């Protein structure tokens, strides 16, 4: 018997997704649960600052300083594509970044809602656990690498290896993605409204990829899945949240899942391994 609606969609519950881990604690433990370095903030307290003259370290310290003072809405101006900006934020926050980020922007975050008006470089939101990150322009490669939870959205095009090793959450790409997207994906969902590059979903263990455009080629053990009414309903709801639409309708998107022929690999005979590979 199916325990959860996601099982009907061929997905497992995403128990590794950031704050949802709290449900494993008893109520008494939950009361005592806190992240060191996380802050209680008030969304009605707003601050803005110019990141132009600051280094990446100074920018991150400035964010912490403002959060420690209770500011829950922060506007960062002129980030100048610097690397490692807005990382390790472990509490709720409305963060507006007016400009572009370099590599590893918004990595290791758990909870904030981030809106980036520019572009992001490689490895945006790597290991993100919860919250939302919305990028209004394009993104570099390894977008959402090892994502564990939350929604990561790029309105434009994204580079190669999008969602590599992702373990939960949702990645939405408004345009196209490059080669090896979903490589070694373990859980979570990826929605690509445009075209996908070669080796899509290569060696994926689990999870689901929806593609609205053309797929240049599937990777090893990535296979077409059956689109259900639940998929369609979920996609419509998810895309509506971010004002996006599938070019040919979500009903006509292609669903890709793991063939699971690589599972139990160690139990196979050498000859069978050759067939799998």
């Amino acid at each position: 018997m199916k325990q959860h609606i996601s099982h009907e969609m061929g997905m497992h519950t995403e128990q590794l997704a950031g704050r949802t881990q709290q449900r494993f604690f008893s109520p008494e433990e939950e009361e005592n649960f806190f992240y060191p370095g996380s802050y209680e903030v008030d969304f009605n307290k707003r601050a803005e600052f110019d990141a132009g003259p600051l280094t990446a370290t100074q920018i991150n310290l400035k964010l912490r300083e403002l959060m420690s003072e209770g500011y829950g809405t922060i506007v960062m101006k002129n980030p100048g594509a610097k690397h490692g900006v807005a990382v390790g934020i472990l509490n709720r926050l409305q963060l507006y970044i007016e400009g572009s980020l370099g590599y590893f922007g918004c990595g290791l975050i758990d909870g904030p809602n981030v809106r980036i008006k520019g572009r992001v470089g490689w490895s945006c939101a790597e290991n993100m656990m919860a919250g939302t990150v919305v990028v209004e322009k394009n993104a570099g490669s390894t977008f959402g690498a090892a994502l564990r939870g939350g929604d990561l959205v790029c309105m434009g095009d994204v580079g190669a290896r999008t969602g590599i090793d992702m373990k939960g959450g949702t990645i939405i790409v408004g345009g196209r993605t490059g080669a090896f997207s979903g490589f070694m994906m373990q859980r979570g969902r990826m929605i690509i409204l445009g075209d996908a590059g070669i080796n899509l979903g290569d060696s994926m263990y689990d999870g689901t990829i929806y593609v609205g455009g053309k797929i240049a080629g599937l990777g090893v053990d990535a296979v077409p899945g059956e689109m259900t009414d639940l998929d369609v309903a979920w996609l419509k709801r998810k895309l509506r949240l971010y004002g996006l639409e599938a070019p040919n309708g979500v009903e006509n998107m292609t669903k890709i899942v793991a063939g699971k022929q690589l599972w139990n690999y160690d139990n196979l005979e050498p000859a069978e391994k050759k067939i799998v590979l």
Partner: protein
Amino acid sequence: MCGIAGLIHRGKAGDIGREMTSMLLSLKHRGPDSTGFALYGTPKGDELVLRFKVAEQEDMRKGFRIHQEVKDRKAEVDRRLAELGARILEQEAATEYAFRYRIAYGGDRRKLADYVEDVDGAEILSLGHGLELIKDLGDATRVADQYGLSGFVGTHAIGHTRMATESDVDIRSAHPYWAYPFADVSVVHNGQLTNYWGKRRELERRGHRFMSNCDSELIAVYLADKMEQGATLEDAMRDSIGELDGVFTYLVATADSLGMAKDTMAAKPMVLYESDDFIGLASEEVAIRSVFPHEIDTFDPYEGEVRVWKSQA
């Protein structure tokens, strides 16, 4: 990991010496060992610009005799140029061991290059009508100051900051590489070629020479060989995607063009900014931002992608 950058002004000349210095300084963290520039100025008739060195930077710290040896080597280069009928119109010493000559020469460039490089310690960095190739140890500011590049005006340029991995920290292994013996062709590269030795032997059998053991030099020679056989720059670059094995992103410049190619794994970064009058490319967007601090739209070229732009100047 190395950093590479390129820029091209379309329809006009620009302050490319200052711009490329700024871009490469922004990429210093990707490679502090050496910095190199390939700058394309305005050609003056049939004159050629010859950039060459007669020693490595570290050689200059090895005893007193090296200073006289450098003078002797330069004199021998001058003698050989005269013997081949090349007339030196102007000469500058950028450093004690690196020189810039304006020469008048209508003969075989391969013959000239081979004869000059036969002098002990001599290496031609570039030979062309517009190309000036400068590379040395240190960061972009140091090299630009040493060689007086801040006022260089031209149409396009490529540059490189090197983190030595598979070969030495010396000028010989620094980028860019001139695509010997083709005038005005240069290459910078970020990545590793895994079929280097096989391809090198193949090209050596065809008569090409290698001055270093750096795999990036292979790309320059490979493209030169293809073009020698009649291929266009773009065709040669497209062939390289399938024939060169490994992970790479490289930039190549000719007298009037700038090109980029990315391998099919797209494992090495490249960010591109494209407007009607300017193209900027770099391993990281922060380098393009050093020239354009205001908000601009940039994107990553995709796997297997080859692009070529003309300066139209």
